[in-house]
């Protein structure tokens, strides 16, 4: 690990599935705690309450997860229940080898 970790910022868009998404965020945080403690921030946006946010950020479907920091901005849709998988795809962490 490098001495100065970049801070990861995520936005999670959901349509009225607050509790489910809170749980997802919690899972992500746990993974982050393991790899980069205290380095991630999540913003949960309910597109039904704030439809203008969805329009503004061109979110077409939910759940959508956008990594806004660091560059490049990346987005993921669909199944977010495996944070390790998601973060590996985003290149945030290395894919855990099956053997270990």
């Amino acid at each position, binding site marked *: 690990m490098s001495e100065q970790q970049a801070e990861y910022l995520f936005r999670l868009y959901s349509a009225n599935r607050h509790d489910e998404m809170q749980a997802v965020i919690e899972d992500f945080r746990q993974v982050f705690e393991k790899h980069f403690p205290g380095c991630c921030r999540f913003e949960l946006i309910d597109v039904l309450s704030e439809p203008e946010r969805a329009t503004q950020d061109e979110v077409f*479907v939910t759940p959508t*997860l956008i990594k806004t920091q660091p560059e490049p901005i990346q987005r993921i849709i669909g199944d977010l229940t*495996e944070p390790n998988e998601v973060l590996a795809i985003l290149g945030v962490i290395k894919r855990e080898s099956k053997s270990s």
Partner: protein
Amino acid sequence: MHSDQADPGAEVARLERLNRDWQELFDAMADPIMQHDGDYRIVRSNRAYAARAGRAAGDLVGRPYWEAFPRQHGPLPGCRAALERGLEKTEEQFVLPSGEVFVSRSYPLRDYGGRVRGGIHLFEDVTERWKTTQALDAAERRLRTIVETESDGIVVVAMDGKILYANPATADLLGRQSDELVGNSLGLPLTGEGTNELDVLRPGLPPAVAEMRTSALEWGGQAAYLIVLHDITLRRLGERRLHRINRTYAVLSACDHTLVTARDETALYQGFCDHLVDTGGYRFAWVGQRRDDAAKSIAPVAAAGRGKDYLEQVQFTWGENRWGTDPAGEAIRTGMSIVIPDLSKDPRTLLWRPEALARKFLTAIGLPVYLEQEVVGALCIYADSPGLFDREEVALLEELAADLSFGLHTLRARAARAEAEATLQIRNRAIEASLNGIVIFEADRPGPPVLDVNPAFTRITGYTAQEVIGKPIDLLFRGDIDQPELANVEGAFTYGRETTALLRNYRKDGSLFWNELHIAPVLDDSGLATHFVGIINDLTEHKRYEEQLEFQAQHDALTGLPNRLLMQDRLGQAVGLAGRLERSVAVLFLDLDHFKDINDSLGHAVGDQVLKEVATRFQQCAQAGETVARYGGDEYVIILPEVDSPLEASRAGERFLATLTRSMDINGHDLQLTASVGAAIHPRDGAEPETLLRNADAAMYQAKELGRDRFQFYTSELNVRLKKRLQMRNQLRRALDRAELVLHFQPQVDLRTGAIVGFEALVRLKPGKHLIYPDRFIVLAEERGLIERLGNWVLRAACAQAKRWQTAGLPPVTMAVNLSPRQLSEPGLMKTVEQALEECGLEPRFLELELTENAVAQAPQEMGRRLQALKRIGVLLAIDDFGTGYSSLSYLTHFPFDKLKIDRSFVKGIATSPQAEGVAASIITMAHNMHMKVIAEGCETPQQAAFLDDHGCDQLQGFFFSRPLSAANATRLLREGKGLDLSGRMH
């Protein structure tokens, strides 16, 4: 080459050979080749071309090539364009009537000047390749058609999530144009196991639900994802609806249970709300009760779910106004269920929408709750997804609301019944408990017979219920029916009237009692009497009650002994009789020893038990004619109405004392009591009852003084000191009551100017013509709790006098008043001082409070605070008797004193004791260093005055200038402006 030029024949032969070689080369090639001139005439061609043209090669030269191959109406368009515009290379395709497809590649030929003079064509038969391509194109077209007409959304996204392709179905699903989508970022699709469900956002529409499948794909040579979105919105809605309906059924069934078990309305409402949220999965449910107040308000009585504070944020009303648009108001007003399918859009919701949306209430329903055809409230339910509450669900919820109404009805009916039963029970209890005898008669049978009687009846008459039920009430008369008012009773029974009659009745034991009987009919709905109620008012009972009251007035409630009042009465009688019968009456005054300790250590309950036990023992000990009375507290008085000798009285005293020798067991405490007894004998020790009592009291005091637990006769010379104390105590109290206190004032003069600058107020008791000095009554006053009253009186009187002088125009002087240590520690001191000043209007700076150093030294911190508080009022503070206590001068710096008064003992020593002089002198110096003024009291001689003057003392007070004066004399002194004359002295 030089030699070739030399031989033209050989050169021609060589060229011909070369020509032939080329021709052979061309002819060997399978593809047609042809050269034409600027007019598209064939210059030469190969065998393959000739074969295509169907002629010998030689025949073709000079002909336009379109007459040979490919046959058509002019040159190939590409070839022509190349020739006319000088293009370097042209490639074009043509199809023969046979269906064969050729490609022609033509190249221009130029002369030496660079002008195009013709072209060469290479033809290639591409029929096979073309056919393949054609087949591929068709396949792609078919696929494309399939993709574009497919109802599922098909999207291709690049590895960065950007949309590369989206079919029209995708555009429809997303509510946008296809070309709008391409280039936008959809995101990398992740589908865990198999498919994944997405909410699809559509501008201006509720979200759709789509199932997503993904697969890897190569697109334009790059890795990409293919995403298939299958719209399952309808299916999900259907499922959700079904789910919801099922849940609503579950709610109904749970609420059925509540209907049966709910004990009260709150439990009923709460149960329904709980089930709606817990079982029904609704976000929030509440029940509001209709209020018929001016605001037509709705009071929430139960709520469950998330966002309960909503009820506090919104004003609920069923009035027809802007706030009355919410489901509760509307349901109550209209008596119908009201559904708001989308809270965020409905114009009715405008006022309360923000509060509702903040709590994720997106859909709402209000259902009226009825009681006896009247809307009494509403059940309101909120859900967090829009579009709920379809017809089926509403029907179920209406059923639920009907259940709630039913439950309410049941509970109210049950409550009404319970109330009726309770009322009946209370009435029965009242009848049972009534002190008046109550008889109930059956009105519709002759007699009329008794139906029931209460216990008081039995108590009064002696007859039990069994003995009188079913019989007429005649047995109370025992044949004594010649009574005028009996007719009233018969009239009442006959005509169903109400009446009251005073009757002679007889108890079971035959004794007579006066019965004031009140009869009242009990009427049925038609106005006929079904029963009579008779109330027996035993006037004999009344009499007893009055006696009881009288007894209570004359007896001590705790011990039941005659009280002081009755005792005095009896003593008066005994003394009166004794005078006539020439007998002696003795009064014993008993006081329990150390009774206060019992009260203090074991509590009043134990103390009271002791007093009762002593009373019992004394009463048992008393002989006929003797009266034992409780005088008050732990004092008892015993009247012995007939004694022949003092000896008999003393024996009686010993007899009563002896009853206490046996120890008492009170609440587990083993107590050993003694008493002190004083005795006075009539007429020897007093003719009047009061004198006798007082003297017996005095004798008792002496018994105490002599060591308690003893008997003591009154003697006229008995205990003079005690008598004096008693006298003094009474005098002091009287003095305060009758304002027999006076103030005297001793002037304080300034040693520099000689003028009077102040007075010290000194209190005197003046019961008659004589003055009594404080040293004789202050201690007593403190002992007897009179010191506060005394101190307050002095303070007020002194302030009033000072003000009086000012009003009279006399020179302003300070008024010094002594504060006792006790006063200083009184919590109300500040208020007392302020009030005293306010009452007479004296400015605080004219009041000087004198305190002894010991008063301050007792609790320096607390006193420091109190003195500071006094300073804030603005009064002056002086330390009195300085030098007699143990405090040092430096100690005084902690307190805000303005003035120091040197104790008279040092002043007295001036001119006789060098030591005293030294102390006085150093006190003056040091006090000045601490910015205090110094006054010397008790200054009696010119020598003392001179010494004080020499040593810089500021003021003096004492006989040398003036003794304490009455107010009148002090006034005169002030008016005359007399001062201290030190003019004879040299400074």
